[in-house]
């Protein structure tokens, strides 16, 4: 945790609320997956909540984000209703995408959440394009593009960062380096000095931050956003963290030693904030309880909700040439 003497307790409390809501959501999603209530794959961001909260606290409602398969936290931090998200995971009516997208395709355009993605690194060009659009529209909104440490080995990383540089676009690239790409340790498949060097070699201002320190993230991003709004062009943030759970809710992750995971749980970013706030007299248990109640309600609602009407499988495809629905 950043130097404790100057901590803005109300701001940190707001972060804690966001992180608690994300944690509660992820835990509930994990359980629902294990219970067979969520049929599609679910990727949990437990342990990475500090990044989502630290980044999105610096964005306005107009600003936009893209995220990945592991994007629940980013959605919640950007303002998406967890109730609608849970409905989406359950594939029910009222979900963010009417139950048609699921966890990997949550989107919520009204809060600037331009979509998760089932394809690693595919959000990068889309985010860059959203920022290109902002520039053409003369808007001063900024775009944040979240991706994992596995994504930096796909071509769109190079193409997208180069593009943002040459068009001087307001995109903040946030690489959540959680050590793994599925069952593979990213170190083993990533050459060179690292993500920061890659970004700099593409002309993007880059820095590393402790992704488990929400205030450090917050502070770094505040500066990034300020520079971007002033026309400074793209920024890159390497946020180091750890994937405390398996790749999906059904992955027990036997490929890593238990003591490694245990040691990382000791660095749980949410617990760290809780300690600081407790020291400052904040009732964190109440925040946790509130978050849990909200998410419990979301699960109950999702579980009770109806599935989308069959004709929904045929709508919102395209204006002309869509298949006709005939019960």
């Amino acid at each position, binding site marked *: 945790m950043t130097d404790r003497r100057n901590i803005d307790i109300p701001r940190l409390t707001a972060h804690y609320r966001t992180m608690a809501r994300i944690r509660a959501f992820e835990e509930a999603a994990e359980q629902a997956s294990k219970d067979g209530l969520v049929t599609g794959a679910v990727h949990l961001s437990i342990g990475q909540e500090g990044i989502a909260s630290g980044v999105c606290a610096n964005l306005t409602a107009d600003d*936009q984000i*893209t995220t990945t398969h592991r994007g629940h936290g980013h959605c919640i931090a950007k303002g998406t209703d967890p109730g609608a998200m849970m409905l989406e995971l359950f594939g029910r009516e009222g*979900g*963010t*995408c*009417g*139950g*048609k*997208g699921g966890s990997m*395709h949550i*989107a*919520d*355009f*009204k809060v600037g959440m*331009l*979509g998760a*993605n*089932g*394809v690693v690194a*595919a959000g*990068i*060009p*889309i*985010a*860059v*394009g*959203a*920022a*290109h*659009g*902002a*520039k*053409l*529209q003369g808007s001063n909104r900024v775009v944040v593009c979240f991706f994992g440490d596995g994504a930096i080995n796909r*071509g*769109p990383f190079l*193409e*997208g960062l*180069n*593009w943002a540089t*040459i*068009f001087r676009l307001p995109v903040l690239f946030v690489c959540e380096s959680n050590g793994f790409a599925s069952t593979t340790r990213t170190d083993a498949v990533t050459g060179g000095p690292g993500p920061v060097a890659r970004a700099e070699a593409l002309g993007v201002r880059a820095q590393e931050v402790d992704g488990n320190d929400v205030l450090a993230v917050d502070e770094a991003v505040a500066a990034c956003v300020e520079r971007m709004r002033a026309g400074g062009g793209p920024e890159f943030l390497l946020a180091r963290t750890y994937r405390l759970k398996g790749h999906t809710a059904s992955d027990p992750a036997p490929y890593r030693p238990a003591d490694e995971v245990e040691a990382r749980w000791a660095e749980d970013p949410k617990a760290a904030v809780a300690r600081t706030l407790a020291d400052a007299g904040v009732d964190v248990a109440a925040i946790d309880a509130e978050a849990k109640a909200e998410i419990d309600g979301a699960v109950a609602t999702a579980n009770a909700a109806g599935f989308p009407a069959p004709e929904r499988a045929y*709508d*919102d*495809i*395209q*204006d*002309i*040439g869509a298949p006709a629905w005939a019960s």
Partner: protein
Amino acid sequence: MGQLTYIEASARALAEEMRRDPKVWALGEDLGRGGVFGQYKGLVEEFGPDRIADTPISEATIMGAATGAALVGTRPVVEMRFSDFALCAVDELVNQAAKARFMFGGQARVPLVVRQPIGMWRSSAAQHSQSLEAWYVHIPGLVVVCPATPADNHGLLKAAIRADDPVVYMEHKGLWPLTGEVPDDPDPDHLVPLGKARVAREGGDVTIVTWSRSVHTALEAAALAEARDVSVEVIDLRTLWPWDQEAVFESVKRTGRLLVAQEAVQVGGFGAEVAASAAEALGRDLKAPVRRVGSPRAPIAYARPLEQLLEISPERLAEAAVDLVRGAVAA
């Protein structure tokens, strides 16, 4: 009416739409110098480099960035240079642009046009000659357009730009210099509607359904067949998805015979969809079995004589048309 080439017609269509709608812009390699074939000549001078954007050689990101820019309300026209290079951007087109509207439950649309010049042309060889329209017809979410004339390359491009869904717009490189009438001072809203075929020639004995450059081959074939007393109707589909089943079925019901002509590889080509649909729907009304003519399942060779061998010729097409009629008479 004025005479324009196919290439000029497209430039005029884009300019008109860019004047009409400030949200329209174009992006691709070399556009600032008019594009590799000159399709963008004069446009950067009028619209400036923000709206006629020069990009790096980054097809995946050209397509992906256009998708992002479309999602936030601009209307990009993407230039892929050769349809073959669009194979570097398939995830972006097929997994992202085509599916976003549906996956997101209708929250957003992806109004973009991706221009993908197709076809065999002057010994361009295996990586610069493909016609893969069948691929995009198979992908939900996409509209697929293949203009055959200058007038259509004007009216269809305008309609494609105004469409609110991703349109794969496939011009034929061999048609760039083709001259034809294009409305001079058009009603700014004069479009060629997407999804509507055009009867390029009327006839009574057999219907040739075709698109893109093969329309002209079919017209030559029709003239050859006429000399052999076979009357050929030629339908230019113009839009492959959605294709004008009504017009095709009406014609085939009348002639009783269907010949589909395509430059693409016949195996798995779009002609299979047309032929299968007609066989299913019209079944025993046909006076002869449906028939397809297309390219053999071979990569496109460089040497001009080999390349020409792969193209469907008017003679071969006429022969097939006459066969269909004579064969049916004999049956």
